[in-house]
């Protein structure tokens, strides 16, 4: 079988992924052991957090296998394993979070209510960012795995690093802008690195589902939304516990919810990690290793800087106690975070443009090849998300929901084929040419079923 990307060292990315995964486990293990030796940070969080991380890693492994496996029986078995392992990991971590750390003071009921309050907004965020991937939507399973990693694994990785850095900073620096800047460095470096690892792992392991800058932004934002979900619960319960004795607990938690889950939903962590994802996504399509490394590094740099800028300099924009304070909060977010979110949107728009024009060209070429997978009159429809949707609606009106779903599957397979052709043209895939032929057969089978 002939590989389109014939470099012999190609599979080394799996080795790098294994190294990264191993490093994540090592950090989590070290964190757990250190928690026993030095009782500076919530020790029980790391003790119980470690099994949660292991379960999440194992669940992710089986989840990824589901996406790669072709045998239906094996897929089903791995799906069940992934479901239970991820579920157990999440439950264990929620237990840790709710019972042993910040939520201890607020109580499990408050923690549960906070989690329930953050669920719809986070789900909305995920729905929106997935919709932005107009041409080839990523599978929900992978998007949710990215979110879960951001929420559970990434948050647990930063506990020790940030605690140690902050403990040293408060003992050496005077309170004020210098200390704030130091702690902002800590948050930017540790949190963005821990979130970026998840994006890097997806890039290394799930190359087939990580096509370009658009996918990078999507996965990065999903990891960021997951992190933001868990951080919101932590802050809401923490502030509830502080203000509850004054009878202002609900107000404090609600203010945090609005600030993090409404106003900052797309501006904060989602933007930062989307910038990392953009760097990784662009690197995905660059032929030279040096350029790839530069691109990934720049993504991390701007993400860390964006996070740092907010944490370090937000104190220079104090909010007044007057009614105008409400406006000021929004203006401050727009002024400080807006430029970075605008950068993400610009990268996304440029990526969509490149991707769109490539898909149109590949769809035309496929139509001209006469294989029957794409008809010439279908090219314009497939190139436009709106026209694709209208054609599915027509199918729904004429033949019902099953026809709608069949056509949706056919369109998705056709776009997958065009994307595969694009990557092969750019020597960006390591799957053999037979994989493309398999996609063609799949399209033809779906077309037969649809008609």
């Amino acid at each position, binding site marked *: 079988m002939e590989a389109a990307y014939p470099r012999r060292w190609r599979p080394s990315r799996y080795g790098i992924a294994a190294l990264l995964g191993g490093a994540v486990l090592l950090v989590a293990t070290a964190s757990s052991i250190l928690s026993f030796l030095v009782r500076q940070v919530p020790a029980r969080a790391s003790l119980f957090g470690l099994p949660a991380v292991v379960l999440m890693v194992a669940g992710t492994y089986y989840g990824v296998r589901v996406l790669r496996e072709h045998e239906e029986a094996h897929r089903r078995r791995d799906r069940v394993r992934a479901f239970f392992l991820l579920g157990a990991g999440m439950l264990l971590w929620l237990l840790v979070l709710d019972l042993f750390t910040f939520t201890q003071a607020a109580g499990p009921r408050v923690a549960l209510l906070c989690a329930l309050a953050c669920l719809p907004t986070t789900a909305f965020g995920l729905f929106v960012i997935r919709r932005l991937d107009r041409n080839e939507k990523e599978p929900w399973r992978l998007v949710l795995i990215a979110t879960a990693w951001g929420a559970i694994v990434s948050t647990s990785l930063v506990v020790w690093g940030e605690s140690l850095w902050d403990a040293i900073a*408060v003992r050496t620096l005077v309170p004020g802008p210098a200390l704030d800047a130091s702690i902002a460095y800590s948050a930017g470096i540790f949190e963005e690195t821990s979130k970026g690892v998840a994006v890097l792992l997806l890039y290394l392991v799930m190359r087939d589902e990580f096509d370009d*800058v658009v996918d990078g932004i999507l996965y990065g934002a999903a990891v960021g939304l997951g992190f933001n979900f868990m951080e919101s619960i932590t802050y809401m319960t923490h502030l509830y516990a*502080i203000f509850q004795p004054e009878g202002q607990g609900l107000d404090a938690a609600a203010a945090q919810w609005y600030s993090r889950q409404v106003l900052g939903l797309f501006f904060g962590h989602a933007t930062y990690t989307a910038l990392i994802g953009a760097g990784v996504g662009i690197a995905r399509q*660059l032929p030279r290793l040096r350029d790839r490394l530069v691109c990934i590094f720049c993504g991390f740099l701007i993400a860390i800087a*964006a996070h*740092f*800028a907010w944490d370090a300099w937000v104190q220079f924009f104090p909010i007044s106690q007057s009614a105008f304070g409400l406006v000021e909060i929004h203006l401050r977010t727009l002024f400080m975070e807006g430029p970075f979110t605008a950068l993400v949107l610009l990268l996304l728009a440029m990526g969509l443009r*490149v991707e769109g024009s490539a898909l149109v060209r590949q769809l035309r070429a496929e139509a001209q090849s006469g294989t029957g997978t794409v008809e010439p009159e279908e090219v314009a429809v497939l190139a436009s998300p709106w026209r694709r949707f209208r054609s599915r609606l027509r199918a729904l009106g004429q033949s019902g929901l099953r026809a709608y779903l069949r056509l949706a599957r056919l369109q998705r397979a056709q776009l997958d084929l065009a994307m595969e052709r694009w990557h092969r043209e750019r*020597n960006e895939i390591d799957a053999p040419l037979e994989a493309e032929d398999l996609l063609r057969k799949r399209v033809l089978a779906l077309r037969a079923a649809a008609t």
Partner: protein
Amino acid sequence: MVQSEESLRPLYRLMVGSGVVGVLILALGLATILKFAPPGQASGLKARIVGVYPYDPATHRVTGPASTHFPRTQPFAAKVDWSALPGGVVVGARWYNTLDEPVGGVGPATAASLAATGALVPVMTPPGLHANLPGNYTLAVTRYSRGQPVELLGREVVLVERSG
């Protein structure tokens, strides 16, 4: 050899440009640290914090033994041995609550003047609250130079309990 017509150069350049902006922002952060905590300010001085005591705001005196835990409704103040510091050194002390908000302090003034008045460092309950917020309260004793705090001379942490 890549033959695709779509160029990724603009995306690459934008990413590299963003990385440069990132470096500038982080450098600005470093400048902030250097400005507000300039190097070469270590005097070797250490402030001795005698203890944190229950405090009576009416008489401005401490009452009872030193403690590291206080109920929310109990005002408290720190006693610092100002006389142990060189008299001409300008110092101050601030309390920060669990939200890192300043909630009371003394100075900046010369150590001699603070020692002469036996200045205590009480925690003030912020307006709008009935009692102190629960959580860790940190006392920072700092040395001032040209009107800004430049060196941490001492630090103490006490806990305000949720109950009480």
